[in-house]
């Protein structure tokens, strides 16, 4: 039930912060999404959407961390292998 899907903000409307909403594109499918909880999000940003609400703005730099961690693990294990030889 806590499924949340990342999508890209296409447009933003609504002057009242509580009713702030916009179109979000999910791999080709566009839906009207409430953006009240991501006041910092701009057009072009990716947000995580759950039951019609953006609950988080996805941080593009942090998104690379999973791969960076893996790369460091790779370097570490290569170092260990070379030191054990």
């Amino acid at each position, binding site marked *: *039930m*806590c*499924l*949340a*899907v*990342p999508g*890209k903000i296409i447009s933003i409307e609504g002057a009242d912060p*509580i*009713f702030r909403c916009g179109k979000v594109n*999910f*791999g080709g499918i566009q839906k009207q999404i*409430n953006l*009240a*909880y*991501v*006041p910092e999000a701009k057009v072009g940003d*990716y947000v*995580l959407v*759950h*039951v*019609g*609400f953006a*609950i*988080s703005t*996805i*941080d*593009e730099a*942090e*998104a690379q*961390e*999973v*791969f960076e*961690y*893996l790369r460091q*693990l*790779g370097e570490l*294990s290569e170092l260990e292998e070379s030191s054990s030889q």
Partner: protein
Amino acid sequence: MKFIDEYRDAEGVQRYAQALKHITTKSWTLMEICGGQTHAIVKFGIDELLPPGVTMVHGPGCPVCVTPLELIEKAIEIASVPDVVFCSFGDMLRVPGISRDLLAVKAAGGDVRIVYSPLDALKLAKDNPEREVVFFAVGFETTAPANAMSVFQASRQGVRNFSLLVSHVLVPPAMEAILSSPENRVQGFLAAGHVCAVMGYTEYEPIASKYRVPVVVTGFEPLDIMQGIYMCVRQLETGTAEVENQYSRSVRREGNVPARNLIREVFRVVPRKWRGVGEIPQSGLGLQEKYAAFDAEARFGVADHTADEPAECMSGLVLQGIRKPYECPAFGVRCTPEHPLGATMVSSEGACAAYYHYRRRTL
């Protein structure tokens, strides 16, 4: 899709599996909290990539599964009232009550509708002022901001024919209940990434230090889950018990502050019954006094209803990670997704449904 496909890279998953094998010297039992993670683990076969000593048990993080029978009975009673439009997420419609489910109410002529968002239910109320529109507000912290917003908007716009049947539950008290049980075997947790996107993870810090368990806030794609397991096992192997954040692209330590503020505006912490587990103190959300007019239990006079759980279903033990679904004698025989005995077989996120869909032939 961006932020999904790249986290399903099979080679990266294999490399995490190798790294995990490299650091694992003992047997460890980890629990993933969220039903979405349970499904990803079973669907992608992640549990089969783990070293033999590392076992994943599946947590209580499926709100459909933990909603107690008495709330299903309340929902059925309200949905049966003429002129009520009863709105719910789809999963709840097939959860068995004592003698029938919400789909049976619909089949008998009740106006039961599946909606995507509580705001869809609020719109129905605005469009149909002569009808009573009730939304079945189930969920963990992830869903609370959406449900809170529906009440806040209804209140501001003076929508009087809208109410919530609230069955909100909270993760940290359930983790404490599991850790305090004499039967507990969980040594580390993958915390639910989307719950933490809303709430942050400061609540888990006292749990990690009090019970000496590592807690890793984890995402939902295979690479996320493998990294979460790796980080958790690395802590266990080195004797540390801290909160770490694997899902940093979406989770900040303080969570989503505007969302937390609106949750606090609309809801208060209350004791809640969990299906198969019983009442856990301070483990749920109910409406604040000032929003009591939006409480469907009071509006329809069902607040005092109680119901006992069926004896044959062992979902309470499954939800606490004490039993695996296939250890239940009814699994796949008297209990199937078409004819479920309990909610863990109904929900698309329930552990029993996950094993039924992805593992039945290999058991």
